[in-house]
């Protein structure tokens, strides 16, 4: 359990590390070029590991709905946005605001897709996140 918890924390660290490295590349090139390198290097790496381990085309991937294939182009914009933002507002604020956007849109997607959920927890969670964004934007001039 401690082992898996360490891996989960490490995964979060790597998300931030990846954004910093891509952000540094964007400083020398452009946000879109850093997103291109992120994807092609990641593709080569995953292809290599998948060839070693095997099972890339296991299951029935051809049965998945067509829209499930749209994650790639969306990811390109996502990585480019992160690379552009990190040099401007810092790693912590970039991460925090992306998390805020992910959480609130996640609640909206759940509601749209009819996923079961606790109304009170959703309301409280979204309210706290919005309050945090208001504070981050300078709603409280305590600094």
């Amino acid at each position, binding site marked *: 359990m401690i082992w898996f918890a360490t891996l989960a924390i490490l995964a979060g660290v790597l998300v931030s590390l990846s954004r910093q490295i891509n952000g540094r590349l964007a400083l020398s090139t452009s946000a879109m070029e850093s997103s291109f390198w992120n994807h092609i290097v990641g593709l080569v790496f995953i292809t290599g590991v998948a060839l070693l381990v095997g099972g890339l085309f296991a299951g029935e991937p051809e049965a998945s709905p067509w829209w499930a294939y749209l994650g790639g182009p969306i990811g390109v914009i996502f990585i480019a946005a992160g690379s552009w933002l990190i040099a401007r507002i810092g790693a912590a604020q970039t991460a925090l605001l992306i998390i805020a956007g992910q959480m609130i849109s996640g609640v909206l997607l759940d509601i749209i897709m009819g996923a079961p959920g606790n109304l009170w927890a959703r309301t409280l969670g979204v309210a706290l996140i919005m309050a945090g964004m208001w504070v*981050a934007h300078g709603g409280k001039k305590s600094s």
Partner: protein
Amino acid sequence: MSQPSQPNQLIYFAAAFGAGGLLSLMVLFNGTLAAYGSLFFASWVPHLTGTVAALIFLVFLRPKRAQQARPPWWVYLGGVSGAVTVMLTSATLNSALALSGTIALGLAGQMVFSLFADMRGLFGLPQRTPVRRDYVALMFIIAGSLILIFFGSGS
């Protein structure tokens, strides 16, 4: 982050918040791929289509390059870090941590390392010292996120 809020600050806020929305869609789309194919497939496909999409964007938008000087070699390795992340989370998703524990611990790791990186100005990015307002915002957003992760879905 210690600088006073400027008009552009709102653009950055909107961009980061919108990027979070894109991330939700990615999780949904790639998660659907993983439900039909392997976890490798669910990461391999978006990297492949993403590479093509990025090339198309580069050809049509022709963004200006910031510097002529060559960056250090390691700046091209961000994709490896991202690909390893997918492998780590697919391992922890199937452990007792499940989805909620994986996301919650990932948020913790991401925020602690981001704050550390800002304070030290790691990887040639601007150094920033977080102020009290940043920590207050952090507590609100993480508290709200944890409530959504652990109590928001399911019964």
